[in-house]
């Protein structure tokens, strides 16, 4: 069998040592790691990780079984067509915040998508207090129809009392 890339998803209750246990098992099993996003979300730890292996998804699952069992992790594996060195450069960074309420993400991303935004990265948080939560979101993306199209679109959102800050990202290459 030739080498194949998989997207490995790991979710479990957060505790120290998850990354080390998972990546050690993969290393010892002969895997090569690619790009990854790992983050604590609401007390869970989440991993999205590109793993390359000369073997099947079943073999990959088997490598992870001991760690998954002892740390009570949910594992999900997809064979993917992706590969490394396929970065897309963001040209816009958008920060959104406001009182947390239902539909804020759908409203903001909907308006932006209609104006040509391709989301490359998004992270968001609910902060503030239990009684008055606030929502904070940060997006990096590519403005397919230009930055001005996004600016016009965001005016609609600001009317709804959502704070939005858009910054062009002009990567300096030196």
């Amino acid at each position, binding site marked *: 069998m030739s080498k194949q890339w998989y997207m490995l998803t790991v979710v479990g209750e957060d505790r120290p040592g998850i990354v080390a246990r998972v990546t050690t098992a993969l290393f010892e099993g002969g895997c090569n790691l690619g790009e990854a996003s790992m983050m604590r979300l609401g007390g869970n730890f989440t991993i999205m990780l590109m793993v390359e292996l000369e073997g099947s998804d079943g073999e990959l699952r088997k490598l992870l079984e001991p760690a998954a069992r002892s740390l009570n992790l949910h594992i999900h594996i997809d064979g993917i067509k992706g590969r490394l060195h396929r970065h897309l450069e963001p040209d816009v960074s958008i920060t959104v915040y406001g009182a947390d309420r239902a539909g804020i993400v759908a409203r903001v991303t909907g308006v932006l998508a209609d104006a040509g935004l391709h989301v490359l990265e998004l992270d968001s948080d609910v902060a503030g207090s239990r009684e008055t939560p606030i929502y904070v979101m940060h997006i990096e993306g590519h403005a397919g129809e230009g930055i001005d199209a996004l600016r016009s679109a965001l005016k609609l959102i600001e009317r709804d009392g959502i704070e939005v800050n858009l910054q062009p990202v002009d990567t300096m*290459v030196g």
Partner: protein
Amino acid sequence: MVVLEIFTYPDERLKQISQPVQRVDDALRTFIAELEQTMRHSPGGVGIAAPQVGRFQRIVIVDVSAKPKIANHGRMILVNPEILSWEGMVKGREGCMSVPDYTGNVMRAERVTVSALDEQGEPREYHCEGYEARAIQHEIDHLDGLLFLDRLVSRRTDLFRRKNYGEKKRRRGEGGATPR
């Protein structure tokens, strides 16, 4: 046209500290011309430092004039550059000819005052801001063996860029409170 080979990380030579130029002469000017051609040959390259092509002397070239709508001094040849003062910090995205296929966010001073010799050996002083100031700091880092990888910050590090925060406050008539 001469295009010099650009060292790429993990080449350890990029970590070497460059030495001051002792004499600005024709030989140096020839090298500077080759360095500039190398910079202009690279798509999107707005700056280059001598150690990127294996010459460990304190020489930097910056030219951000091709970028639309930004303050700039045009073509700047900076020999033995020194940053005399810094002001404001701002996050921005950087890439590097010596680090292909990666870009990341780096904090830099928003405004810098730089002294340097020009290619005739005359002392010059520049007040730079924004994108141009970023380019200068990035290139001077190369002279000290530093890459932008040494200064990466997490994407969660900041919330708002200071300048716009201030503008927004003023627009709403909430007074000129200094952010943070």
